[in-house]
C-alpha cells in the first residue's frame, strides 16, 4: 500500500494574516460594544467605530486572502510536476488553516471556537467585510439625523461580527452562534422604525419564519454529531461538531446513509428559511420594511446567502446525503428550481422597487441552490461573489432614488419614472447592475449564472437547465420593467416634483405614522430645500459606494472567466478544495509550517478523485470530485440570445404599455379570465401567506399567545410585560389579517379548509390546563407506544 516515505512533501506557506484571521469578527464585535457604551457621546454618534472596524476587518480579510493565494500557488508549484505526470487527477490538497480553542465543555464534550480558513471562508470574509464597509459609509448619509442612528450602527456592526464569525467557524457550534446573531440583527434592523405597525410586523414575520427553519439547523447538527462523533474522535481526534471532521466522515464510506440523508435534509430546511427558498421565502420581501442599507447588506448580498454558504461548507454531507453525484433530481435542485421560477414571476406584479429586487434576490438564491444541488459547487459560490456586488448596488441605487429622487417613496408606478436625466450616476450604476444581473456578456452575472446553467446541464440535470434558462429570460424581463418604470418614460408623482399632500408632516421628524409607504426617517432637516429642488443627484457618500459596486459588477466576473481559458479560472483554482485523498497525519496537523503529504505517483495515489471510491485506511477525503462543464460558445450563445430576447421584448412591452397605453395591452388582465386568474394568484403571492397565517399561526401561535396573555394578566402582572405585549401583537395581527380576508371575500380553499378543521378542533381547546395536560401525556404515551412497536 501507500508508504509515507514515498510521499513528496509540500510545505504550504502560511502567514500572520492567515493565522490571525479570527481577529476579523472580533474587531466588529469590540466595535459593537464600544458603540453601545460610548456611541452616543462620540462626535459622529458611534458610526465612526462601525466604519473603522469594518475597514480594519476588510484589511485583515484581504491580507488573509492574499496569503492564501500565495499558499495555494506555493503548493501547486511544487506538486506541478507530479500533476503533469498524471499522478493525480487534480491539484494538490491545500489544507485549511484551522485553529481551535476550547470555548466551554460539558459532560466531557468540548465546544470549540476558532477559525477554519480556506478559499470558501475567505471569499465570504472578503465579500462581507467589503459590502459592510460600503454600506456603512452609505448609511452615514442615508440615515443622517435618524433618531436611533447609534443603535442602527450598533446592530449593523454586530451583524457583521456574527456573519464573519459564522463564515470562519471551524465547528457547527460557532456556526450556529453566528447564524443566530445574524437572525437577531435582522429582526432588529427590519424593525428599525418600529413605530410603524407594518415594520414591526415584518420584523416579527422575518424572525418567526426563519426560526421555523432554524429548528432544522439544531436537529441536523444533532443528527450529524451523534452519528459522526465516534468516527471523528477515533480517526481525526476532533469532535463531531468539527466541520472538516464532518466532511471527512461523510466521504469516508463509514457513515450511515440514513444519518447523512436526514442530517442533510434537516440542515437544508434551515437553509430554506435563512436563504428565502420556497416555501419559506415569504419573509424576505416583507423584510424590505427595513432601511435600504439593511436590505442591501443583510437581505440581498450577505445574510441570505448564509444558507447557500452552509450547503457549500458541508458540501460532502449534502453530496452523500442527497446523492448529488448519482441522481438527476434531488431535494436541493427541486427547491432551487421552484424558487427561481416562482420568485421571478412574482417580481412582475410588484409596484415597490425594493420588492422587485427582493424577489429577484430570492430567485438568484434559487440559482445558487440549484447549482449546489446539481454539483456545480464552484459556479454557485462564484455566483454568491458576483451577486453580492450587483445586488448590493441595485439596492443602494434604489435607496438613492428614494432618498433624492422620489421623496422617500419606493412606489415605481406612483413616484418614479424619467429619473435617468435627473440622477445620471444612480441611473448608470443601476443599469450596469441590471445588465450584470440579467447576465449580459461580459458583465459579472454572465460568468457566474451561465456557468451554473451550463454545469447543471452537464451533470445530467437537464430539466433544471431549462428551468435555469427560463429563469434567465424572466430575470431580464422583470429587471427591464423595473428599470423602465424607474428611470424612463414620463415622470410621475414625486419624481415629477410634485409634493405629497402631507408634506407638512415631513418637517416634523417624529411623524412616522402619517405615510405608511414612505421610507421616512426624519432626515429632512438636513436637506430642507429638498422639496423645492425636486429630484436631484444624491451626495457623494451615496454615489461613491454605488460607483465602486458598479465597477465591480463589471469586472468581478473576470475572476473566473471560463470562456477565456483555464488560466482565467482563478476562482476555481484558489477556492475549490481539491478532491485528493489526504493522509490523516497532515489532516489534523495545523500551525505554522505544516506539511501536506502528497501521495507519490507510484503507489497510493489514485487516478480517481474522492467520492468515486472510499478512501483507504489512514486517508481521508474532504471534498467530492465534481466535474466541470467545458465552456462552449454555442451553449453560451443560447443563453445570451434568451437574455437579449427578455430584455428587448420587455422593453418594447413597457413602451407600449406604460407610455403609449396601448389599448390591446392595458386592462388585459381584467378582460381575459386566464390572465386575471394568474395575476390574482401572483398578486396574492400564491396565497402562501394566507396559508401560514390561517393554518399554522392560528392553530399554533394563537393559543400560545392567549396563554401568554393570561399569564400576563393574572400571574406575572406587569413583570413579563414585554412578552405579553409581543404575544398580544401577534394575536392582534393574526386576527386582523384573518378578519380582513374574510371581509374582503378573498376566500380560498386552504383558508376555508383550515377554518373548517379549526372549528372541529375548537372544543378541544377548552382553556383548561388539566385537559391540555391529559392530551399531552396521552399523545406522548401513544407516540412512545408507536415507537416501541416499530422497534420490536
Amino acid at each position, binding site marked *: 500500500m501507500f508508504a509515507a516515505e514515498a510521499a513528496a512533501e509540500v510545505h504550504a506557506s502560511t502567514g500572520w494574516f492567515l493565522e490571525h484571521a479570527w481577529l476579523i469578527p472580533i474587531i466588529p464585535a469590540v466595535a459593537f460594544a464600544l458603540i453601545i457604551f460610548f456611541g452616543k457621546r462620540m462626535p459622529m454618534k458611534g458610526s465612526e467605530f462601525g466604519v473603522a472596524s469594518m475597514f480594519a476587518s476588510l484589511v485583515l480579510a484581504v491580507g488573509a486572502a492574499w496569503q492564501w493565494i500565495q499558499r495555494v500557488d506555493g503548493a501547486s508549484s511544487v506538486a506541478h510536476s507530479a500533476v503533469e505526470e498524471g499522478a493525480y487527477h487534480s491539484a494538490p490538497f491545500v489544507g485549511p488553516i484551522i485553529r481551535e480553542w476550547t470555548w466551554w465543555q*460539558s459532560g466531557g464534550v468540548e465546544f470549540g471556537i476558532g477559525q477554519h480558513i480556506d478559499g470558501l471562508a475567505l471569499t465570504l470574509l472578503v465579500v462581507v467585510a467589503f459590502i459592510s464597509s460600503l454600506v456603512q459609509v452609505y448609511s452615514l448619509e442615508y440615515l443622517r439625523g435618524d433618531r436611533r442612528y447609534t443603535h442602527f450602527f450598533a446592530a449593523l456592526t454586530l451583524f457583521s461580527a456574527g456573519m464573519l464569525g459564522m463564515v470562519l467557524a471551524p465547528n457547527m457550534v460557532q456556526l450556529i452562534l453566528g447564524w443566530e446573531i445574524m437572525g437577531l440583527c435582522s429582526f432588529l434592523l427590519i424593525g428599525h422604525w418600529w413605530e410603524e405597525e407594518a415594520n414591526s410586523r415584518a420584523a416579527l414575520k422575518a424572525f418567526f419564519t426563519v426560526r421555523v427553519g432554524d429548528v432544522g439547523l439544531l436537529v441536523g447538527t444533532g443528527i450529524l454529531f451523534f452519528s459522526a462523533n465516534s468516527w471523528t474522535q477515533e480517526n481525526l481526534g476532533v469532535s463531531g461538531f468539527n466541520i472538516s471532521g464532518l466532511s471527512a466522515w461523510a466521504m469516508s464510506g463509514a457513515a450511515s446513509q440514513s444519518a447523512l440523508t436526514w442530517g442533510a435534509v434537516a440542515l437544508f430546511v434551515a437553509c430554506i428559511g435563512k436563504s428565502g427558498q420556497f416555501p419559506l421565502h415569504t419573509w424576505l420581501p416583507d423584510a424590505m420594511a427595513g432601511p435600504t442599507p439593511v436590505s442591501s447588506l443583510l437581505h440581498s448580498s450577505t445574510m441570505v446567502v448564509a444558507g447557500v454558504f452552509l450547503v457549500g461548507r458541508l458540501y460532502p454531507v449534502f453530496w452523500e446525503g442527497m446523492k448529488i453525484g448519482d441522481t438527476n433530481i434531488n431535494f436541493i435542485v427541486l427547491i432551487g428550481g421552484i424558487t427561481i421560477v416562482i420568485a421571478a414571476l412574482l417580481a412582475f406584479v410588484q409596484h415597490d422597487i425594493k420588492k422587485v429586487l427582493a424577489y429577484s434576490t430570492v430567485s438568484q438564491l434559487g440559482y445558487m441552490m440549484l447549482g449546489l444541488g446539481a454539483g456545480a459547487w464552484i459556479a454557485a459560490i462564484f455566483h454568491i461573489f458576483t451577486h453580492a456586488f450587483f445586488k448590493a448596488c441595485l439596492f443602494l441605487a434604489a435607496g438613492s432614488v428614494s432618498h433624492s429622487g422620489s421623496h422617500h417613496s419606493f412606489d415605481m408606478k406612483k413616484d418614479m419614472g424619467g429619473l435617468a436625466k435627473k440622477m445620471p450616476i444612480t441611473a448608470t450604476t443601476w443599469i450596469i447592475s441590471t445588465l450584470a444581473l440579467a447576465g449580459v456578456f461580459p458583465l459579472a452575472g454572465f460568468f457566474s449564472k451561465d456557468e451554473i446553467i451550463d454545469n447543471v446541464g452537464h451533470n445530467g440535470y437537464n430539466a433544471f437547465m431549462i428551468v435555469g434558462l427560463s429563469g434567465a429570460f424572466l430575470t431580464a424581463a422583470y429587471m427591464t420593467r423595473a428599470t423602465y418604470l424607474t428611470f424612463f418614460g414620463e415622470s410621475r408623482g414625486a419624481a415629477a416634483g410634485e409634493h405629497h399632500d402631507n408634506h407638512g408632516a415631513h418637517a416634523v421628524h417624529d411623524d412616522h405614522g402619517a405615510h405608511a409607504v414612505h421610507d421616512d426617517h426624519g432626515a429632512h432637516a438636513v436637506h430642507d430645500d429638498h422639496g423645492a429642488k425636486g429630484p436631484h443627484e444624491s451626495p457623494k457618500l451615496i454615489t461613491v459606494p454605488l460607483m465602486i459596486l458598479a465597477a465591480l459588477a463589471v469586472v468581478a466576473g473576470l475572476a473566473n472567466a471560463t470562456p477565456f481559458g483555464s488560466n482565467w479560472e482563478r476562482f476555481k483554482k484558489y477556492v475549490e478544495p481539491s478532491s485528493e485523498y489526504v493522509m490523516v497525519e497532515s489532516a489534523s496537523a495545523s500551525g505554522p509550517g505544516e506539511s501536506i503529504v502528497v501521495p507519490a505517483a507510484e503507489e497510493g495515489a489514485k487516478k480517481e478523485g474522492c467520492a468515486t471510491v472510499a478512501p483507504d485506511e489512514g486517508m481521508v477525503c474532504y471534498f467530492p470530485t465534481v466535474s466541470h462543464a467545458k465552456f462552449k460558445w454555442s451553449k453560451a450563445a443560447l443563453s445570451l440570445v434568451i437574455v437579449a430576447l427578455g430584455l428587448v421584448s420587455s422593453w418594447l412591452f413597457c413602451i407600449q404599455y406604460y407610455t403609449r397605453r396601448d389599448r390591446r395591452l392595458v386592462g388585459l388582465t381584467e378582460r381575459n379570465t386566464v390572465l386575471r386568474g394568474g395575476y390574482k394568484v401572483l398578486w396574492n403571492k400564491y396565497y402562501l401567506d394566507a396559508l401560514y397565517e390561517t393554518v399554522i399561526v392560528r392553530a399554533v401561535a394563537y393559543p400560545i399567545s392567549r396563554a401568554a396573555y393570561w399569564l400576563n394578566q393574572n400571574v406575572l402582572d406587569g413583570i413579563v410585560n414585554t412578552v405579553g405585549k409581543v404575544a398580544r401583537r401577534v394575536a392582534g395581527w393574526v386576527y386582523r389579517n384573518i378578519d380582513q380576508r374574510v371581509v374582503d371575500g378573498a376566500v380560498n380553499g386552504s383558508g376555508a379548509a383550515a377554518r373548517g378543521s379549526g372549528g372541529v378542533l375548537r372544543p378541544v381547546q377548552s382553556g383548561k390546563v388539566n385537559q391540555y395536560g*391529559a392530551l399531552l401525556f396521552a399523545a406522548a404515551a401513544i407516540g*412512545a*407506544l408507536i415507537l416501541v412497536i416499530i422497534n420490536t
Partner: protein
Amino acid sequence: MLGADLLVAQNIGFSIIAVMMIVGALRVVTVNNVVHAALWLVVVLSGAAAQYLLLSAEFVAITQVLVYVGAVMVLFLFGTMLTRARIGAENDLNNKNWKIAIPVSLLMLGVMSWVVIDGFADERLIENPGEMTQVPVLQISDDIFGPYLLPFWALSFVLLIAVIGAIVLARKD
C-alpha cells in the same frame, strides 16, 4: 428469581419500602385533605431516601431528607395554610374531568412497564453484589466541578432567579 446471592435482606427491604411508597403516593393523589396529602408525601419522600440508600447513594439520600422532607414540606404546609382558611377535609379536590386521567396514566404505565421489562428482563443491577460500595462524596464533587460545571452554573442562575422571582411574585405592593 431471588437467589441467595441476590441479597435477600435488601430485597425484602426494597419490597416493604416500595409498597409503602406506592400506598403513600396513591394517598397523596386521592385524599380529600391537603394537609394529609402533604403528610403522605413525607412518607413517599422518606421512602425514596431509603431506596437511595439501598442504591448506595448516601449523599443523595441525605440531601433528599434535608431538602425535600425538611424544606420543601415546610413550604407546602405554609402554602396550604396561607391559601386555605379551612384546614379540614374538602369534598371537591378533584376537577370535573378527573376520569380522563385514569386511562391516560394507566396507558403510560403500560407502555413504560413493557419497555422496562422488555429491555432489562431479569438483568441484575450489578453482577457481583459484594462490589457495591458507597459512592464517595469526593467523586460526586469532582463530577460537579469537573465535566458538569456548566449545568452547575446554569443551576445557580436558576436558583438565583427563583429566589428573586419568588420575592417579586409574593410581595404585596
